[in-house]
């Protein structure tokens, strides 16, 4: 299993141990952290939600593709769901490889693809009291301003 979800803090030390390989000379990891500012708004916390059944399949496909495309040894991605505070880790990707260049390339490829393809959504809560689903609210704002459920969204 090379892609999984957790509803508690990601255990990076344990995850890293899965990637240890005596033939690997380089190891690259990425962590996505909850940032205090996004697109002009002060963020206070986040909620992550996933369509887990499909997300795990798509995540596994992404990591498997990376293992095929780049000459790397091991790769793994873990995504957090639920409520996160500032500086919490939302996602972790780790890759070990014989040479460091491929580890960097594969790690970056995996996180880029995960962000584009895996059905995960985040709702940002702002200092202003507003909140919004990232990538959903802005593009959706124009067509319908009449819906009552919109009152708390930007």
């Amino acid at each position, binding site marked *: 299993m090379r892609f999984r979800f957790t509803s508690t803090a990601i255990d990076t030390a344990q995850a890293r141990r899965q990637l240890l390989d005596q033939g690997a000379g380089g190891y690259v990891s990425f962590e996505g952290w909850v940032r205090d500012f996004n697109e002009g708004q002060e963020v206070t916390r986040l909620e992550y939600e996933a369509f887990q059944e*499909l997300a795990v399949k798509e995540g596994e496909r992404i990591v498997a593709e990376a293992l095929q495309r780049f000459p790397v040894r091991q790769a793994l991605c873990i995504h957090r769901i639920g409520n996160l505070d500032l500086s919490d880790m939302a996602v972790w990707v780790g890759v070990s490889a014989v040479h460091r260049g491929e580890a960097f390339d594969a790690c970056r490829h995996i996180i880029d693809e995960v962000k584009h393809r895996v059905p995960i959504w985040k709702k940002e809560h702002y200092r202003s009291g507003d909140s919004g689903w990232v990538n959903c609210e802005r593009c959706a704002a124009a067509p319908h301003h009449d*819906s009552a459920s919109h009152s708390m969204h930007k």
Partner: protein
Amino acid sequence: MQLKVQYYALMREQAGRSEEMLETAAATPADLYVELTSRYRFTLTREQLKVAVNSEFSDWSRRLAAGDAVVFIPPVAGG
């Protein structure tokens, strides 16, 4: 025909539920989205969504069968 529909994120909030069993005449996910949008006033257009049937990405023109589980997928934002 009865289908299972699950809602996530913004669409879950707009539908006011996370899933439901639905009796519908919709032949395709595209038809089903038109029907559900008139009911729940979803703000996302079909062009902004993907759709999954039985936990795999699907075409909008796929023929739905009784018992299928349909999920409309808003723009994703992992990481």
